[in-house]
């Protein structure tokens, strides 16, 4: 026995794991009866259904041929995720003025094509200015320009 369809196998395994997760987390939700469905009824039914699809997919991966998964772009994945997560950390603490450039720089590392030249810098500055003016000043999104780290250091009007 060998895996003939890699994608089917891994997708199936993911389904099974996710289904197990949903079922385990939902183990204490009350089932209720059909005429009075409890909070657990629908999730449990769906959880088992997902698991069944996963098993079918795994079985199929041994029986039919499929394309290999190919390379996973771990580096790209890591840099883009790091950028977004950093934005989440910095947006309320350092503020948009720092969170945005950090996000752009980190995610740029995801692409081999990125260039770090004057043109790129000007675009970054333009984008930052645009976002501050349009989102914070224009649309009034309650997003600090300078975050909590600057409390008491700069006048509050600079932070908004």
């Amino acid at each position: 026995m060998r895996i003939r369809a890699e994608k089917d196998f891994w997708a199936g395994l993911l389904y099974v794991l996710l289904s197990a997760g949903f079922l385990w987390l939902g183990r204490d939700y009350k089932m209720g009866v059909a005429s009075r469905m409890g909070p657990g009824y629908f999730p449990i039914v769906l959880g088992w259904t997902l698991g069944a699809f996963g098993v079918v997919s795994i079985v199929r991966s041994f029986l039919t041929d499929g394309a290999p998964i190919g390379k996973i772009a771990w580096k790209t994945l890591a840099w883009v995720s790091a950028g977004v997560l950093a934005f989440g950390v910095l947006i309320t603490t350092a503020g948009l003025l720092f969170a945005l450039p950090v996000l752009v720089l980190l995610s740029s590392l995801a692409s081999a094509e990125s260039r770090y030249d004057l043109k790129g810098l000007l675009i970054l500055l333009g984008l930052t200015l645009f976002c501050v003016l349009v989102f914070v000043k224009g649309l009034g999104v309650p997003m600090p320009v300078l975050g909590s780290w600057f409390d008491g250091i700069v006048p509050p009007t600079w932070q908004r």
Partner: protein
Amino acid sequence: MELFSNLLLGLETSFTLINLSYCLMGVFLGTAIGVLPGLGPAATIAMLLPATFAMPPVTALIMLAGIFYGAQYGGSTTAILVNLPGETSSVVTALDGYQMARQGKAGRALAVAALSSFFAGTVCTLLIALFAPPLAAIALKFGPAEYFSLMVLGLIASIVLAHGSILHALGMIVLGLLLGLVGTDVNSGAARYTFGVNELADGIGFVIVAMGMFGIGEIIANLQDEGTRDVSITKVKGLWPTREDFKRSIAPTLRGTALGSLLGILPGGGAALASFGAYALEKKVSKSRHEFGKGAVEGVAAPEAANNAGAQMSFIPMLTLGIPANPVMALMIGAMIIQGIQPGPAVMSEQPALFWGLIVSMWIGNLMLLVLNLPLIGMWVKMITIPYRYLFPIIIVFCAIGVFSLNNTYFDVYLMALFGFIGYVFKKLDCEPAPLLLGFILGPMMEEFLRRALLLSKGDPTVLLQRPISATMLVLAVILLGMVLLPSFSKTREVAFQEE
């Protein structure tokens, strides 16, 4: 006549300065993202949703709808000029459109594409105005059992008519349904899958899922396939089609419109399938079928009419039943819910101005596209040459700001990163994000309808089969699924999406 008074009401609503300008903005943005490869209407609408919170509902919907059908126009422009279809729905347009461009007929191809799209858009506006009211009237009589079965049918149809593996689409739907249940159960007040996290008590925002999977996930996948895009652009001249072009385009446009309208109304049909189907049909029935693939004007007119018709008609199930036919419609439903409007058959009677305003705005938007796009060709062409390395960080920034502004919490930004990761992993495994998003939107509604149906029947599940409309829909769903298992049908299904 009622039809005219309705359209008049729509005209009044959409002909205000604010609505006209947002309509213009929508179609303009839509064309732009249609031109840019790697950014689709679903991600764009998700990004812009937070910005629409402050607008009146009708204005928000008019703009979002404009993005959707504007993208169809933009997608065909790049397909013809540089053989890079901006959207899936314009993949087949590239086959003959690009050949025409290489023969120096780029302007004529663009004009035919725009005119046939406009024709289809006009017809569909009328069709929606004609068929939506009776459909909504029927839907008003639906009980919870009918709704539940309708949603089952909608979900099944949406995967049978889309491309990709049925098994994985089913898996993604169920996963989407499960994710949709995260949060407080409305009936018992029990917190489900919240891990005690406050931010999850109201459930996961669907904008977060959409932006993560369609925005971030797509970007990661695109970056992986990043190559040097060698774009050589043909000079555009002679925008007016010849008399012969006109003559040859009339019949294909009509056929494309008819097929597109038919497929568009089905869940999952929409623009992509319509254009593939129309091209295949023309190849069979056209007198000049030997020219197909070598620059036949019919090969541009038919799929362009069909994809625009399909895109517009997919508004029918959304507006009359509250059922999304594709991810974009799911986002439109989300936009309505955020605006405090419960999508469904009641929208038409309770919010006539919104309903008819939206429909008439689609016709106005199509007209704007026709008038604006041809003169602006030069600008769109310039946009194609923007390198992706500048584009993708900007998209991520807009996604991040958009998600943060939903609830002003960084937690949502983390969640988006998580869904970007999930989206990429599943994409690598050929599991499409679209069915997951449809399931995610429908999950809570399906649970609620099933709960009510079973409550009314005192727990007897056969109620779903005892009520004729509900039973018909379930039988249809089973037939659809059964058809896929037939080897001959699944072969046709594969061929329909591989027209190259």
